[in-house]
């Protein structure tokens, strides 16, 4: 038997046990006929060990990658989820708002957004918790610098935080009843900014709305009128 460069090319896979049985047998027969070629296997083992050590030295990605992936998947699924009923307009707006938050530092906001949209009956308190980092990733739940829809000059802006036991559908109903729209949040501490057009204010104006919201202890944890 003469030297066969084509079979020699298979030696790395032979050494790693990655050949089909037929090819493996062919290489074994070749090595039996050319025992000097077995020295190649030693070289290959050295190469493999060096490559494995190099990769081990590369370390691992930072913790939290899976949480981030699942949060992104929630946002993707939320985009696909059908939205119906009277709350669809507001929910749609909230969904667009939250899904626009995509920078790494705001990933947690994406988690919150996804949970709000996918499970409409979820208790929003879990989303607005003041715990800055439930995922343990080190990310801060701070979105003050995130995307913000500007309130127009003819709108009154309120800073609001919902109670931990408030349900999503109840919050939507409350905001709709006040003709309010979400313009920013969630901020640290679970605060949102909402705006109500001057034309939609009841008799008594913004102060009347503020009093109504403050009185709604079941849903509203905190509310103030922004200057």
């Amino acid at each position, binding site marked *: 038997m003469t030297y066969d*460069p*084509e079979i*020699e*090319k*298979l030696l*790395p*896979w032979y050494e*790693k046990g*990655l*050949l*089909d049985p037929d090819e493996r047998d062919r290489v074994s027969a070749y090595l039996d006929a050319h025992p000097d070629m077995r*020295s*190649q296997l030693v*070289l*290959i083992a*050295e*190469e*493999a*060990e*060096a*490559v*494995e*050590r*190099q*990769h081990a030295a*590369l370390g*691992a*990605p*930072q913790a939290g*990658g*899976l949480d*981030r*992936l*699942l949060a*992104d*998947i929630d946002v*993707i*699924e939320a985009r696909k989820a059908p939205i119906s009923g009277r709350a669809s307009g507001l929910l749609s707006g909230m969904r667009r708002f939250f899904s626009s938050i995509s920078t*790494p530092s705001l990933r947690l906001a994406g988690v919150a957004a996804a949970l709000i949209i996918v499970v409409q009956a979820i208790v929003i308190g879990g989303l607005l918790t003041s715990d800055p980092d439930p995922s343990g990733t080190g990310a801060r739940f701070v979105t003050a610098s995130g995307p913000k829809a500007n309130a127009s000059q003819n709108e009154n802006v309120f800073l609001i935080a919902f109670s931990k036991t408030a349900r999503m559908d109840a919050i939507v109903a409350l905001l709709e009843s006040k003709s309010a729209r979400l313009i920013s949040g969630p901020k640290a501490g679970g605060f949102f900014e909402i705006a109500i057009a001057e034309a939609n204010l009841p008799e008594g104006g913004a102060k009347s709305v503020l009093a109504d919201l403050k009185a709604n202890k079941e849903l509203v944890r905190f509310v103030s009128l922004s200057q």
Partner: protein
Amino acid sequence: MSRSENARDLELLEQVARNDRKAIALLYQRHHLRLYRYLLRFTKNEAVAEELVNETFIDVWRSAGTFEGRSQVSSWILSIGRNKAISLLRKRSDAELDEDYASGLQDDRDTPEVSALKQDKALAMRLCIDRLSDEHREVIDLVYYQEKAIKEIAVILSVPENTVKTRVFHARKKLSDLLMKSGIDRGWP
């Protein structure tokens, strides 16, 4: 990767295609480290590699139902990540690409660093592997670290199987040349 491991991956992928979040989490846990290291060798940037891992698994989530089984699931995942890395690198400015290209070229000089390692064969080997061209280093990684069969590497790189065999052969020869220039004679080729 064994057939049984690939069979498990296939099961998980089928579940992912049915929007099973636990399945994508398991698939991620099984493959993210190897994918990360593969992409890190590609991009040479930890943050970029992590971002690409995330994007790769989002693609897996979205397109699990389209997997045709022409390769192992792990090879399919690597190829998605590889394509993303290539796209990203192409978007960089020409200057950055030139820099990357230059850093990827092998350097035949017998540097003092290498010379000092003549007595440490294993360390010299690792240093010389890093001095291979990106193309050669990648195939070496795919065989030795990712433990991919010829057919799988052909799918990942989108090249014929013969090209894979020849490329690995030449990569190994180049490695021996570099070691020889560093004073380490392996007796081959």
